[in-house]
């Protein structure tokens, strides 16, 4: 279980290789990558700046990972979140979950993303091609997505 906050790009294959090496009880690896899209609210994006709260970010992400480990059968997991200036097409976030079975890997990966989106202290500022800056608003659907994990399983 580990978390990293960095400006540099990440390499999915290398990260998966590190998480799975020497553990042949892993039968399923789920990953999620969030990327900067080229337009937002009808405006073309020039860049996206990601700000975070150093110290709190790492604590929150570790807490989210611990919760995932308590809920799902996980051999290993990883969260990498980039900060600083990014361009359309750049990767923002990587989540990898490794489990004996695919249901746990998938569910843990979704759980981590849902919680990360509503708890981890990151903020996105978009700059459109005309130079206008705009802080991204939080989306109610992200809260809804996170809330589903508080309910008893169907």
């Amino acid at each position, binding site marked *: 279980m580990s978390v990293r906050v960095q400006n540099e790009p990440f390499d999915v294959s290398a990260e998966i290789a590190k998480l799975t090496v020497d553990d042949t009880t892993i039968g399923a690896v789920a990953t999620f990558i969030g990327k900067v899209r080229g337009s937002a609210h009808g405006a073309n994006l020039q860049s996206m700046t990601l700000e975070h709260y150093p110290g*709190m970010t790492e604590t929150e992400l570790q807490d989210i990972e611990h919760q995932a480990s308590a809920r799902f059968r996980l051999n290993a997991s990883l969260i990498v979140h980039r900060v600083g200036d990014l361009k359309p097409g750049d990767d923002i976030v990587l989540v990898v979950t490794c489990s004996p079975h695919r249901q746990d890997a998938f569910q843990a990966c979704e759980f981590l993303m849902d919680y*990360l*989106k509503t*708890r981890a*202290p*990151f*903020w996105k*500022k978009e700059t459109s091609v005309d130079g206008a800056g705009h802080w991204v608003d939080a989306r109610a659907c992200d809260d809804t997505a996170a809330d589903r994990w508080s309910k008893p399983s169907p």
Partner: protein
Amino acid sequence: MSETNTETRDVTLRYFAWLREKTGVSSEVVTLGPNIATVQDLIDWLKSRGPEFEAAFASPGTVRVALDKVHAKPAAALVTAREIAFFPPVTGG
């Protein structure tokens, strides 16, 4: 003897994203009087400091708080928190 509620104490305030931009401050150390017991007390006091702070905290639903790097509610008591952070709802991922 409840020292945190009767004495003044120094705390670090941090502001992120548009709260940092609107207040013009990213970090500051302030001395809190004994009458500031909760997050909401602190926000009310901050709003009295000038138009930038008044504007930054004008819409209560859009400001989140962390006490010593842990999410907290406006009604939360500050108690012994040394670092109090204000920021918009998070938008990572």
